[in-house]
């Protein structure tokens, strides 16, 4: 019997206690639960959600470059290109050649959706105030609104064209197994407005996140209001668009650039006191920096140089208009005659250079208001022509005597050229693309107002894994 007792002891020793032996959590990365458990973690996760904005799929390159190449502001130099960006220029969009924005925008949406519900119950812990939490929530809502806004105006028909048509899924809860269907355009816009107005109400006046290199690259209340002005413009809610524009203009925070400041403003590292309300900050140390694929190298005649400016655009500027000098010819080995925008010429940070991409600036507020007024909005003491002339006088362009819708739209093209606006302005105003200076496929030279290209295709890989998703008309699915 003694031996049996001994055996039992040995056997018991053999079976080691193992309740937590198999738990090995990662140390060099942070688990999702841990990241979202504290205010500090949520703050880190909120700030990080800005990071993909500088991706080459978005403001770091293709969202802007694609739009300009489609709209007729861009041109493809036949001798000087790297073979990149042929799809938007030639409209060779198919279900496998689509804008890359989708995945990146939904990634940002998922990042903020992870944060928003976890903000509950964080007030009072470690001195966190309600306003601290509200500010984070406002940042998340702004990014969610912006991401959906860029998605819906790219992959769907415009609100002003057909608001009952399919928009994009408005995702407010990111479900790992979710296969969300497309909401209609009206629903998407209503959600954008809801998110942005909630953010506007939550964020503290004058708040911007600290500890960053550029304060204009994080959200402020004025940035939310400026985006609301644009969203309402896209919805045809003229009075609201004008009112939000007025709020931003009269805030006194921003000032129109003088003619001699204009070129330098686009080379500024961290903006302040000028026009910029919200921009995306370029830096080589950014995790999402595009490097050779970044907008600087694509728009330089000595870089990949796939995105030149068309003569159709360059010739629109009056003599003396400083905006007409924002183009360069013959830099280094570039062929004579072709123009290249200098809005992304860089911040002198090496080769390739980096630049900021402006998302919202003061001139746009004047232009939004001017357009709204020509379409019926009223703002005391202001007319459409007074708004346009406010800009033109600062650009060395002659003052206009009167201004109708078409004057505003033309001014908008001149002022905001190569900032990703013109294609979407054509889309929402039922315009068409007419390209004279053009080197692409002849079938794609002109895009009529009823073309299916105004709603670009969703990628097949996405349709393959989400059975609730429907392709836009005109593309193979």
């Amino acid at each position, binding site marked *: 019997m003694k031996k*049996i007792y001994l*055996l*039992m002891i*040995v*056997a018991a020793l*053999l*079976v*080691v206690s*193992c*309740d937590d*032996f*198999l738990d*090995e*959590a*990662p*140390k060099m*990365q*942070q*688990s*999702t*639960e841990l*990241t979202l458990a504290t205010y500090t*973690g949520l703050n*880190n*996760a909120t*700030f*990080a*959600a*800005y*990071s*993909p904005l*500088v991706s080459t799929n978005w403001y770091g390159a293709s969202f802007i470059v694609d739009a300009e190449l489609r709209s007729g502001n861009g041109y493809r130099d036949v001798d000087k290109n790297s073979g990149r960006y042929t799809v938007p220029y030639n409209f060779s969009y198919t279900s496998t050649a689509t804008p890359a924005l989708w*995945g990146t925008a*939904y*990634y940002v*949406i*998922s990042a903020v959706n*992870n944060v928003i519900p976890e903000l509950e119950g964080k007030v009072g812990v470690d001195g966190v105030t309600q306003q601290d939490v509200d500010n984070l929530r406002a940042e998340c809502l702004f990014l969610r609104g912006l991401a959906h806004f860029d998605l819906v105006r790219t992959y769907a028909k415009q609100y002003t064209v057909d608001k009952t048509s399919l928009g994009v*899924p408005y*995702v407010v809860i*990111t*479900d*790992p*197994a*979710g*296969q*969300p269907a497309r909401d209609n355009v009206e629903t998407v816009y209503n959600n954008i407005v809801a998110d942005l107005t909630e953010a506007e109400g939550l964020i503290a006046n004058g708040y911007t996140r600290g*500890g*960053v*290199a*550029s304060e204009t*690259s994080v959200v402020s209340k004025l940035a939310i209001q400026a985006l609301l002005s644009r969203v309402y413009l896209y919805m045809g809610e003229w009075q609201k668009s004008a009112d939000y524009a007025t709020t931003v203009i009269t805030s006194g925070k921003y000032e129109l650039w003088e003619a001699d400041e204009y070129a330098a403003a686009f080379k500024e590292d961290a903006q302040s006191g000028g026009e910029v309300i919200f921009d995306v*900050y370029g*830096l080589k*140390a*950014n*995790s999402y920096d595009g490097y050779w694929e970044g907008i600087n190298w694509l728009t330089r005649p000595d870089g990949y140089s796939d995105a030149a400016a068309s003569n159709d655009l360059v010739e629109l500027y009056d003599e003396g208009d400083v905006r007409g000098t924002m183009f360069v010819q013959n830099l280094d080995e570039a062929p004579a005659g072709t123009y290249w925008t200098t809005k992304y010429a860089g911040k002198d940070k090496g080769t390739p250079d980096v630049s900021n991409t402006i998302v919202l600036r003061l001139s746009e507020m004047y232009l939004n208001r001017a357009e709204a007024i020509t379409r019926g909005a009223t703002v005391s003491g202001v007319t459409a022509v007074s708004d346009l002339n406010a800009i033109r006088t600062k650009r060395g362009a002659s003052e206009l005597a009167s201004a109708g819708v078409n004057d505003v739209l033309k001014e908008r093209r001149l002022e905001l050229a190569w900032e990703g606006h013109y294609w979407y302005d054509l889309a929402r105003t039922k315009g068409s693309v007419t390209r004279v200076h053009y080197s692409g496929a002849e079938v794609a030279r002109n895009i009529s107002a009823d073309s299916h290209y105004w709603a670009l295709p969703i990628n097949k890989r*996405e349709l*393959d*894994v989400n059975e609730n998703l429907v392709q836009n008309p005109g593309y193979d699915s």
Partner: protein
Amino acid sequence: MKKKLTMFLSLFFIGIGFLTAQTQVRGTVVDEEGEPAVGATIQIKGTLQGTVTDMNGNFSLSAPTDGTLVISYVGFVTQEVNVSPTVRVVLQSGTRALDEVVVVAYGTVTREAKTGAVSSVSGANISDAPVVSMDKALGGKIAGVSITANSGQPGAASSIRIRGTSSINAGNNPLWVVDGIPVLSFDNSYFMNTGNLLSSINPNDIESITVLKDAAAASVYGSRAANGVILVTTKSGKEGRASFSARARYGASWLANDNGFGVMNAAQLLEYQRDAIRNVGQDPDNPTSTYYRPKEILSRPLTNWLDHVTRTGNLQEYEVNASGSNVRAKYYSSLTYNRTDGVFYGVDMNKITGRMNADYKLTNNLETGTRVNLTYSEGNDVPMQSLYYSNPIFGGMWILPWTPAYDDEGKHNVKIPENSNTNPRATAHYDDQFAKTYQLLGNIYLQWNPISKVTLKTTNAIETVHTEGRRYWAPETSEGIATVQVNMQNYVQLTTSNTATYNDVFFDDHHVRFLLGQEAQKYTGRDLYDYAQGVNPDIPYVQTAPQPGLIAEQWYTARTMLSFFGILDYNYSDKYYLQASLRSDGSSLFGSENQWGTFYSVGASWNIHQEGFMENLDFVNLLKLRASYGLNGNNNISAYRAYGVYANTQYNGATGMLPSRPANPHLSWEKNGTWNVGLDLRVLDRLDANIDVYSRKTSDMLLDKNVPQTTGFSTNFLNIGSLMNRGVELQLGYDIFNTNEFAWQVGANIAFNRTKITDLADNEEIAYSTDGRLRHVVGKSLYTFRLRDYYGVDPTNGDALFRDEQGNLTNDFNKARYVYPASPEPKFIGGFNTSLAWKGFNLGAFFEFKGGNHVMLIERRYLESDGAQMSSNQLLTALNYWKKPGDTGVNPKPLAGNTTQSNNFNTTRFLQRGDYLRVKDITLSYNFPGELLEPIKVKGLKLYVSAQNIYTFHDVDWWDPERGVDGIGYGIYPMTKSFVGGIELSF
């Protein structure tokens, strides 16, 4: 967990009911001449309990009255006698082949009793070949085991595939188990090209290697058994008085090159270039031409760059070992120094290995012992494994023969524009790239027979690997800037393995062995890395670098595993065998919903020769039919894949955290279900044959599955997909003569394996992770090349022609269609050997072959470029080009500055059959006769000479046909051939 524990405990105590009466046995063991056998092993059958004879051949022990004693002594037939109070055993010399004991999972088995597909190689067959690591010794020796050298560099790791390849994203190398403990076997290279952890074990310390190929044999290793298991047993003390031996070997090596492969000399290259220039309508003698190549070039000093970067390699090895035993203790110890200087300047490997194996009987039923291996190795090399400018094998072929080797001051010339101003000789001279590795592998065991028929054993092991690495770019080679990178790696693996075995015989014929076990293992890996640019070359260490030039990184990983297992062996009358195993593994690698997996096997065998109806067929010594099925797993994935994690992101001058990977609580093992049917035959006591047929299905294969990006991610790593391996293996051995005077043996093995992808979830095709030229395609082999369809040369004008989508010929590369022409997987592999023994002479030859595989020669894009590369040397084979209308089967016409893409490296042009037959080893040895040595008190003296890889038959336009398992291995250190001579002395 609690349930498992209860089950384990209750199973455990079932065995304890069988207590039987004991009796004291006294006995003597003598040999045929009546001389006492000192140190013969007496074991109670079915237990590990036993003793050894003393100096007079006597022994005594306590044994069950109805038990059987097994008496074994080296060089004699193992005998069994029934227990009785006094026993006298007369040993018969010679070992019957069928009694050879093979090490298997958690035990041993005789050939007659095995049920699974198990093959083994004895230590004698391993230590003769002058190889640095044990994995190299297995190539071609065992049917179905493919050893592919990843490089010819001294100390290089190998890719080992047992019965094909079972996985895309989990690993494919087998589990190595050394003296019962699973060990680390990954390639631990950091700065160096290769690092083989298995080389820490001196091949001469190995007693035997067993390869467990099918599920019946391997499944008790559960979640790590899918790629097969290799069991290594190191030597323990030999019975008898202390013996010492000393060994020394020395050899020289060269690049293997059996097809006259090489690059052009200056005159050939100049003429080739001048032709290429004239072919584009220019004049090579015109100084204003884009390409000015006057004949005057040949009067400049010329350099044979291949000669300049290579040398005669050499290897040397010295070893002393001691072994012996007495009644209570056995020991084996060895100390080895090994140095190999590679055939390229700057490449060498030094290694010191020490081993101490000791076993001690504390009492008659309690034994303890240790296995300790210590290794220090120091390797130096230069950048290879890819087409670096500093890679000597590429630079040596690439640099122009009229580029001088030395500058005006007699220093290594580093103004070599065609090679990015890099001189591989200067790199070897000035730069550092090394690893110093300290390895400890040790275990201690305690074995107890508390009662007869029950054996308890606990083995506890530690394995540590510490590596210190450095890479230094000297100012002399790096435009005046000195850069240093250093790292420290540390791996620790702790293992405890505990088993309880119960052995019994019921009603004479029912033999039962029942084993229960538990194991736990924890692995941690750490790494520190520093990069410092702009260090002071006089103090080339991290702290002399300016701040912006500093990068520091840290890495940590850990994994744990907990297992419970059982084995049941049953045999009836040595005719019918049944074996079953069950293992439950829990692993930290997998998701919380699937942390535990259960694996099992069932095998049966039938010894037909034991049946009554075979009685008249005396010439059949063994006829055995085996069949098995089992399910095991592959857990070879990196840690933490089941965790949802956030990772650092930098933006706007600050740091934040972004979602990096979704949680996957269902992440689980890849599963392998294997059928095996085999037949073993031995006739006339001289012909052995084994044949095995198997089918192996991998399911729940881990793949990245596309998910909607609206979830925030693009892919999830999921258990989807499946793959088949099917094959046949044949192993033959024949003793043509077997007399005392003269013996001649031959052996051969061949194995055929086919892989087929049956399911990739949503995908029809996915790219191979390391090279897009290889694809995984549903319905095809696991690896299939996808390449542009090159047709050949247009006989009318020398253009390169391709086939387009419609199958028509075109000279437009961009219209060339993609095809799936071949696979890098061999259709068959094998080897054959012969050995002749006459008096003291022994002549052995060993051949290895592989066939049906294809290799891709990416380098030829640059070195057979049809004029695209006008400022580099070219291969001799490039001279065979189109010269006049009607030429076919030649290279396209060279065009200076060729932009036709004729040399594009994604075409079938550079794909070749990789079949080879290698004369791997020829060794001649002589053992001096005992009568000559006795007067000088020497027990044995052996001299030998050996030739390795002395000739390889192949058709690949490269140094050597071996290009790694994916057939693409560009820039690798080619295989070498060597001559070695050695002496062994024992006393």
